[in-house]
């Protein structure tokens, strides 16, 4: 009898650990669909779970909203993902879960290019969360959001918070990262206004100033040739020819040259920012890997 009793107890424990019985059936189905990247059906099952269990007070509803949000995000529907993640925050029961979800929401916002909103949420977590590790995580992602919005100063400040708060064995913000962020703050951008002014005075010089030598020389040659004929027509009092030349040749090239000078400067600045961001992120990931290795 005692053996039977032990056997029954063991079986009961085994049965409890089975996912289909321990967890809710539709939730397990949702998980399976989610794990096999069948996000559309996963959403259906999570929605079914939420609909039939809305009265539940545990965190399972929040989890279901959270996974629905992630599934929508995988399907490329950022707006719906953000909506579901907000619901997940509203239904979370514990402070930790609420703050974790807020950080996840911020990550989705960063991924969908909504940096301002992401920074706002992360600042709130940093200010009001009672959990130091989440405050730190929020600072990290705020740094990433600031990087993408090219706000180097704010990114520097956020990464300082993140690295300075690490355990004692850490030596604060890595020197390499610090120097990159300092470099970013002192980046020498090309002014689109100045590029336009330069090209107004000497066609093509704005493009050359923005580093686009090929188009600069091209603009200089074309404008010199057409401009020469235009001035020549005026000097020889052939005003109709001059007007025709201006309307169809020189005027067009000259206006185009000014416009493209501004665009070249903007393109130069964008490239500069993107290169730096990719270097900083690479360094950051490297540092995080080192940190993880140290901890392990």
């Amino acid at each position, binding site marked *: *009898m*005692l053996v*039977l*009793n032990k056997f*029954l*107890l063991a*079986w*009961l424990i085994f*049965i*409890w650990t089975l996912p*289909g*019985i321990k967890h*809710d*059936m*539709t939730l397990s189905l949702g998980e399976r669909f989610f794990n096999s990247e069948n996000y559309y059906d996963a*959403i*259906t099952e999570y*929605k*079914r779970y939420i*609909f*039939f269990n809305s009265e539940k007070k545990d965190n399972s509803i929040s989890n279901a909203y959270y996974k629905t949000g992630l599934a929508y995000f995988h399907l490329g529907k950022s707006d719906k993902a953000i909506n579901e993640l907000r619901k997940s925050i509203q239904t979370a029961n514990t402070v930790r879960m609420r703050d974790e979800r807020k950080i996840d929401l911020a990550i989705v916002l960063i991924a969908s290019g909504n940096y301002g909103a992401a920074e706002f949420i992360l600042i709130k977590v940093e200010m009001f969360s009672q959990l130091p590790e989440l405050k730190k995580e929020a600072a990290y992602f705020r740094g990433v959001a600031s990087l993408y919005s090219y706000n180097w100063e704010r990114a520097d400040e956020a990464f300082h918070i993140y690295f300075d708060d690490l355990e004692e064995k850490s030596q604060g913000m890595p020197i390499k990262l610090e120097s990159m962020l300092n470099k970013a703050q002192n980046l020498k951008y090309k002014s689109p206004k100045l590029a336009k002014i330069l090209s107004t005075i000497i066609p093509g010089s704005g493009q050359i100033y923005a580093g686009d030598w090929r188009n600069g020389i091209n603009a200089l040659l074309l404008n010199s040739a057409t401009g020469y004929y235009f001035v020549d027509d005026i000097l020889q009092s052939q005003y*109709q*020819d001059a*007007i*025709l030349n201006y*309307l169809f040749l020189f005027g067009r090239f000259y206006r185009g040259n000014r416009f493209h000078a501004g665009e070249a400067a903007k393109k130069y600045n964008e490239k500069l920012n993107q290169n730096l961001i990719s270097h900083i992120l690479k360094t950051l990931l490297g540092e995080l890997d080192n940190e993880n290795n140290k901890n392990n």
Partner: protein
Amino acid sequence: MKHIRLTSIFLCLLLIQQFLLANSNQEKYYKPENILRFAEHLFQEGDYLRAASEFLRYLYYSDSIPIEEDTIYYKIGLCYRLGKNHQKSISYFQKVIADYPYSNYLDDSHFQIAYSHFLSGKYKESLSFADKSLSLIKSDPGRLKLQQLTGLNYIYQKQWRQAVDYLSSLENRVKHNGLSASLLNFAKQGEQLPRKSKFLAGLMSAIIPGIGKMYCHRTGDGLMSLLTIGLTSWQAYDGFHKKGSKSVKGWIFGAMTAFFYLGNIYGSVVTANIYNQQIEDKLLTEVRVTINVSFK
């Protein structure tokens, strides 16, 4: 010994309870009436394509053929129509008509098929289906909706005269219905739009270059054409005047003048066409707002 027996019974009961709980969970989610509730919820939420799948699941899970099977098929059709899958929606409405000759949704299904054709931009199909269905519709509101849709199809095809004739020919009771009156009003407005004559625009530009474009309210373009053709023709005249028919300049500018002159006439005709399209599209936008409110 008695204690051991009691524990065994307790464990057995616990085990049975676990199985019952698992089964009740499954029942909760996949009981046909609950699937239907969930489908209705998804429909209310605006998740139409997922709702359509759940309505289908409901039919599949039902042990016997549900009494309201035609209603379900109608709702599936509606889900697909609202989910903008018009081809599928038409097939489900056709099923209601073909398989349930005594259904309450017969009239509505006729309307929905014609409306689905209309929404997918197949106005001729919509018109011909509405025309065929009109004699089969029994209820007055059903006939009214189909007649309004017929009028709407004429309007969307920009057949303003037919729209006015058709909507005016309706019985007084129908004609004085709010939506019918609005449609008639739109059709009359469409007929009386201040269109520009393509022929006149071309003729005007043939007499004085650019005037045809000015007549179509494109003063800037018109002045540019006038200036361009004026200058090139002056250059051609100048060349021929100085060197006679052997003037290269005369021939080059003469060819340019001819090219610009013909282009200016063609451009004026196109401008008149674009102008007419723009004012018609502006009116159709107003019609679209009205039908979005009235047709569901």
